[in-house]
């Protein structure tokens, strides 16, 4: 029982234009595999990965989404209750960077988190193994700063570069968010009711004897 208390499950949603490597990143992270073959995700893909963050066992429930518009009709509920949103772009394809704003906005509208300005996002610039580079680190970092300091990682799903680190940061960010909002919600708000019922309870005891 106490172990289940420590366990945490995080819902992580991966978003970005089609073919930026969302599925490849997830596969590299969970299965340590990469394939050059492109297979569009239809609807959504799901994977589970367990990580340890500061002595806590964290289960990441990774929701990989389809970048292609025609597969995006999964419903509003799909995005709800996410703990972290990972935005991915391709460093060699400028259009995938430009559309980040709309992905971010779209997510905030659909998921409608309580505090949109503090919602944990992480940005991944993928395919750093490829040339020519179209979006510099600096440009990406500037965008991140303008969005309330989103953490930025440059990754290569193909070479496994930075993937582990990026996902660890994702887990940490989501956890930090959970902890900071923890007080909002009282785990045992029913104390009043105990005192309410105390009288009949004690009466009952004396009666049965």
């Amino acid at each position, binding site marked *: 029982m106490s172990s289940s208390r420590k366990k945490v499950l995080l819902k992580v949603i991966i978003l970005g234009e089609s073919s930026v490597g969302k599925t490849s990143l997830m596969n590299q992270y969970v299965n340590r595999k990469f394939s050059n073959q492109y297979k569009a995700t239809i609807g959504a893909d799901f*994977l589970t990965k367990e990580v340890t963050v500061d002595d806590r066992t964290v289960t990441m429930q990774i929701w990989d989404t389809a970048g292609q518009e025609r597969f995006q009709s999964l419903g509003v509920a799909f995005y709800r209750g996410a703990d972290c949103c990972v935005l991915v772009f391709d460093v060699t394809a400028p259009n995938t960077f430009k559309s980040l704003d709309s992905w971010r906005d779209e997510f905030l509208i659909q998921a409608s988190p309580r505090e949109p300005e503090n919602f944990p996002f992480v940005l991944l610039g993928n395919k750093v193994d490829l040339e020519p580079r179209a979006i510099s680190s600096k440009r990406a970092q500037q965008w991140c700063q303008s969005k309330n300091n989103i953490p930025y990682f440059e990754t290569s799903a193909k070479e496994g570069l930075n993937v582990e680190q990026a996902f660890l940061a994702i887990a940490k960010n989501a956890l930090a968010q959970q902890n900071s909002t923890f007080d909002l919600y009282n785990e045992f708000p029913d104390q009043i009711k105990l005192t309410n019922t105390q009288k009949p309870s004690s009466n009952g005891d004396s009666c049965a004897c």
Partner: protein
Amino acid sequence: MIPPQELLEENPNITNYIDEDSADNNLKDNEDWTRKKKHVFILSSAGKPIYSRYGNEDKLAWLFGVMQTLVSFVQSSGDCIKSIHAANTLFVFLVKKPLILVAVSKAQDGVQQLTSELSYVFNQITSILTLTRLNKIYEQRQNYDLRRLLAGVERLIDHLLDYSETEPSFFLGAVECLPLSLSVRDTINSAIVAACNKIKNLVFVILLAKNKLISLIRMKKYCLHPADLHLIFNLVQASESLKNSESWTPLCLPRFDSSVKPNSILLKKLRRGNCLEAINESLNVKDESYTTADFQEIRHYLYKCKSTAQFYQPSIGPPYTQTTEHLINVYKRAHHKLHSTVRPLKLIFERNSKEAILAWDTKGFELYIVFEPLIDTTKAISFVGKLLNWIKKKEERIFHLNAPTL
């Protein structure tokens, strides 16, 4: 309900997950898990796992994602997914905000039955947390991991599901009484009334033994729904502490109060208490089972009295001593046919190589009789009258009628 083809056509592969070698080996490795006849899953509206009857829900997190997506996808067209029928597997969804409950069954249950089992599970959760609280939690935090609050409740749910597979009371929507002579029952009732009259705001007093009702005394203006009684029975059965000592447990009865306020229920083993002790002793001695000696070709039967929502069954004997679940399934199927929403039936007689069953739904009662497979039809029907007469004679013993009120 959406036909599966339509789901598939629009979204040919909602989850292209299990393909290729993306080995989350959980399923492949675990044939045990895939072979289970009936799975039950509970998840939050966000798709976070809360409960899985079998297997570690953390490891199955991806599967919960799939379930939530199916629900979300159908919701986006202003509809609500109820069931998916695939060969001999039935997937039933119960979307009860803020939770989603899913049953996956290969046991030939009907959609209605599975839905009702899922409601029981949902009610079990609200009986502990109350619906108000549950809603509040998710209003504040859609991403809440409800397992935090339900530690220990899994056991209750496990027990409830096992219980519903071996007990007719759930699908019948009735409770079983401990057979007692009228005078003994009257003595118990008056003892309870005398003892409890002094207690203010006491709404119900329930005395039970081995999952059978001995006495239910209520405040005049309140009634207790059998579904709520089942939750209490389940709680008592599944909790060791309740069996061994006096205890106080706050409990919300979902059917009684649409769970705006939690009712606190005093659950007690009335083993102590000067007047009750002697009676309780005689109870144990009198725990005789009514056999069907007069009706040799009857193997077992269920009689539900509708007005009291109580039922009677003889103890289960051969050939079902080891296969109670099979017998329960025979009953469930018959019950399903009588109460089918598409085409309800009044009277059924069915025969197969294992047994014959007669099921009859009338205004006042429901009767289910399981016979030897080779029984003659006219003989079977003549037994019905005899059995009904016998039950009528024993009525006062086997049912708890005319309970006094507080």
